[in-house]
């Protein structure tokens, strides 16, 4: 009699479900920092060009304890939040209008697409002429930079709302205002949020550029200042804060998205 063979069938797609423990991501960042520190300690790159993480933290601490960082950070925060809020609100409102009204669409959409590709920072000198050199031009340039991507995303979000939902709402008695409020706005929200996230990056970019061109306080002004003095540790501390600000912004939007779009 032949010996019986036993062939176990194994899951050949196990790699699709492979679990990676959380510390792997942390290890990645820690590894990079250690490598960076080593490169500096071994003097492979002179500290003026690339200061060590430890040196950045030491000088960063100095910036914090002297209150300098806080002052600059708050100046930047006000500008970016103010500009972002104004740009986002107007972007959403105008986007809804253009999406819903065929007439408004026909009149304004070509204008929007003509202005959209202009790098907004090129308008800063003009805006300074209009508003002077106070806070207004910085807020305005950020608002402008946020307005367009939010508007265009809102517009396409409105266009992507399933017509059957609009028909259903009208069938059950909705007037135009309620169709916009209860169907089109929530239906467009996911796309609007994509625009808001995109605009967050633009806002940060414009904030720093504007502050480098014309500002006394602000993280951008601070980074430029220490660059001119060749104090790279403090420069890098400023850059770090910007990265933190960006991260914070993104997390804030994600949190808002979870709250506003619970049905996804």
């Amino acid at each position, binding site marked *: 009699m032949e010996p019986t063979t036993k062939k176990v069938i194994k899951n050949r797609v196990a790699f699709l479900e492979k679990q990676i423990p959380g510390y792997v991501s942390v290890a990645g960042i820690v590894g990079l920092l250690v490598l960076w520190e080593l490169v500096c300690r071994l003097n492979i790159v002179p500290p003026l060009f690339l200061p060590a993480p430890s040196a950045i933290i030491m000088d960063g601490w100095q910036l914090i304890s002297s209150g300098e960082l806080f002052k600059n950070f708050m100046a930047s925060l006000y500008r970016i939040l103010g500009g972002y809020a104004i740009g986002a609100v107007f972007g959403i409102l105008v986007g809804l209008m253009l999406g819903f009204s065929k007439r408004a669409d026909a009149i304004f959409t070509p204008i929007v697409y003509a202005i959209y590709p202009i790098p907004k920072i090129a308008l800063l000198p003009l805006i300074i002429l209009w508003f002077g050199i106070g806070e207004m031009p910085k807020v305005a340039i950020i608002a402008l930079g946020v307005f367009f991507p939010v508007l265009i995303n809102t517009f396409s979000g409105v266009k992507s709302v399933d017509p059957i939902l609009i028909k259903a709402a*009208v*069938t059950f008695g*909705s*007037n135009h205002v309620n169709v916009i409020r*209860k169907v089109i706005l929530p239906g467009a929200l996911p796309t609007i949020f994509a625009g808001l996230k995109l605009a967050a990056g633009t806002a940060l970019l414009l904030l720093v550029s504007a502050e480098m061109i014309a500002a006394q306080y602000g993280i951008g002004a601070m980074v430029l200042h220490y660059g001119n003095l060749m104090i790279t540790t403090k420069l890098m501390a400023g850059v770090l804060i910007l990265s933190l600000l960006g991260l914070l912004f993104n997390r804030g939007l994600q949190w808002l998205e979870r709250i506003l*779009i619970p*049905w996804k």
Partner: protein
Amino acid sequence: MRIVIDNVEKRFGDAKKKEVTALKNINFSIEEQEFVVLVGPSGCGKSTLLNIVGGLLSPSQGEVYFEGKQDKDPTLGIVFQEIALLPWRTVYQNVIYGLEERGASKKECQEIGQHYIDMVGLTGFEKAYPKQLSGGMKQRAGIARALAVEPDLLLMDEPFSALDAQTRTIMQEELLTIWNRTKLSTLYVTHNIQEAVYLADRVIVLSRHPGEIKEIIKIDLPRMGRDQEKYRQQFERYSDQIWNLIRHDAQAAIKEA
């Protein structure tokens, strides 16, 4: 109130500027508390007709009107094939949508909404989002939403065609029970002949190219329990009669697509 579909015709302009007549010479009425089923092969324009009756499409000719003594505007409730629940609203919020738009008070919404949620068997799912429900449960919510406005005419556009066969059978039975409690005038579209015979007081058979009424068949069986053994023969006879009317068109429809 009775609903009259008076000489309705619908033409569509197609891509090559050629006019296609989707519906022609459509004349019938839906009496109070009558359940009328439109049946026909795909492409016969039955959904188009339902959309016209539901005010979602204008006819090229003719009109649809309510006839009765009441002065108020008639309300319509539509159950969509695509279900069309708002994804951002919970079951309860979806069901009371029509009441809300009509300006009903919170308390009224609560009472009526709960009544119909219970009726369709969604008790306990009030706070769920549509995404969290199965197809059958979603359509129950769709039905509850249409019933909640207590419409003068209930329109159902292949409401169960997206469901699997077993769920479908159960839903048909439940619909009949619900209908027996509410007795709403109903226009129901389906391509399923058994479904038509099972539910209808009258079946309107449509033909294709152009969509015209081929025949109106009165189903002379008691409303409830038509699936019982003793009615089997009559049931089969009605089904065969309708199938023979449709068969030729249905075959042509397959070749076209």
